């Protein structure tokens, strides 16, 4: 038995727009409207609007909020300026990832944290279990917020049509509260998960549909299309952004995932510090690599990576890159093989050479 699937405030709009609805992380979400490749290219060339209301939110506030977060997050929390956001990982004592998150500093003693949909209740329970004697409270605001991602080179121009809030002053990873489409109290953030410029909007759930319709109407003449989770996945993979459950997980640490830049060993103590430090010093037993294939076949999650005849790893994510016109993916590869020039992947009995990438395919 599984729990019934949840619907975002935009479910009716997705159906009306012809979205193909699939179950994802406990939610009924549109995987595509017209086609993954078309939606992907719209985000690279004009703009796409994603409903990401399945993502969770927690508000952490209190006198010790920053100190508390610094004890459970790998990145530095106390140094985030009010009005700025930071990407971080929250780790287990063994260095495995509880989740990866974006932390928005709303005020000196108040933060809003974006949680992965599949981890939201686990994350909130984890935070509450580690509150100790800190003067802090952790509020579950998952139901209060809807989230839209407006992404692409035309995103700013389109958003400016439906908000009186000045957008130019918002820096990358900066945010402001403002009005969008007549709805007050929206968090407008210059962040995203596509590798293209754009914004993420945190909206009062009850007003989300009104805002989404206004953005779609204003953006249509500028090439805006609704985009689904399929394009979101291919976009983030071209940009080499990790997806929880794939490149990071309870068994893949941020050091293994190439996210060492989010782990601040200068902090005296945080959960996972010792294990992560050992990995960083001695080298992890395996690490995540990004690759492309000169082939037509896509290496899917679970496909085995070989060095000669020896299995040395497995594919974590794989898709067709619309920008490159060839398959790309990530793989977890045993230590000593992560920069090998002679790895292959088995796709239905064929051994296809991996071309390891040192940079994301889009920047």
């Amino acid at each position, binding site marked *: 038995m599984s729990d019934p699937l949840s619907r975002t405030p935009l479910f009716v709009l997705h159906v009306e727009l012809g979205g193909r609805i699939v179950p994802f992380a406990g939610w009924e979400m549109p*995987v595509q409207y017209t*086609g*993954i490749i078309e939606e992907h290219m719209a985000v690279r060339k004009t703009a796409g609007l994603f409903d990401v209301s399945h993502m969770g939110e927690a508000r952490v506030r209190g006198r010790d909020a920053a100190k508390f977060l610094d004890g459970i997050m790998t990145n530095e929390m106390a140094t985030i300026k009010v009005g700025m956001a930071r990407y971080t990982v929250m780790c287990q004592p063994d260095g495995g990832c509880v989740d990866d998150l974006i932390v928005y500093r709303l005020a000196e003693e108040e933060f809003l944290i974006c949680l992965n949909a599949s981890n939201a209740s686990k994350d909130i329970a984890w935070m509450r279990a580690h509150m100790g004697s800190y003067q802090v409270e952790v509020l579950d605001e998952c139901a209060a917020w809807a989230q839209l991602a407006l992404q692409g080179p035309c995103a700013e121009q389109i958003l400016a049509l439906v908000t009186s809030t000045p957008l130019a002053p918002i820096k990358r990873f900066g945010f402001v509260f403002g009005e969008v489409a007549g709805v007050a109290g929206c968090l407008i953030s210059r962040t995203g998960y596509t590798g293209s410029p754009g914004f993420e909007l945190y909206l009062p759930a009850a007003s989300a549909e009104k805002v989404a319709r206004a953005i779609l109407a204003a953006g249509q003449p500028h090439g805006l299309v609704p985009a689904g989770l399929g394009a979101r996945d291919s976009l983030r993979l071209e940009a080499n952004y990790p997806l929880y459950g794939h490149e990071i997980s309870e068994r893949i640490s941020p050091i293994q995932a190439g996210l060492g830049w989010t782990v601040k060993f200068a902090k005296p103590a945080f959960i996972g510090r010792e294990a992560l430090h050992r990995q960083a010093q001695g080298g992890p037993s395996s690490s995540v690599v990004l690759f492309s294939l000169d082939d037509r*076949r*896509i290496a899917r999650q679970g496909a085995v990576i070989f060095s000669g005849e020896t299995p040395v790893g497995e594919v974590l994510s794989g898709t*067709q890159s619309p920008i490159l016109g060839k398959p790309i993916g990530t793989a977890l590869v045993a230590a000593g093989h992560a920069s090998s020039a002679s790895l292959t992947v088995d796709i*239905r009995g064929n051994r296809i050479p991996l071309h390891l990438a040192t940079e994301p395919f889009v920047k």
Partner: protein
Amino acid sequence: MSNVPAELHYTKDHEWIKVVADGTAVIGITDHAQAALGDVTFVDLPKVGALFNHGDVFGTVESVKAASDLYSPISCEVLEANSGLNNSPDLVNREPYGGAWMIKVKVKNPAELASLLDAAGYAATL
């Protein structure tokens, strides 16, 4: 709604087969199948002369979302594979019953054709 041409036969696995009078047939996948797969990026087809029994995997169609096996609706020998799909796999999405035919075959056992679904029978499975 999916397009299900009346003149074809079908499998419950969403292949279509068009039987020609001279004992040959053409095989492809249905409109419903291409819509479910989404953007097709690659079609892996067999070589001329390959032999398949009814229900054997004769190829793979790969979309952005997934790779799906193609099942032979009948026992057959491959006479031709559609090389046009090499450069234009997206034909599968655009012309599933036309330009995106996959293989032409010699029918080995005409009696097997009776076990296929007609258009109404296939439409009822969708």
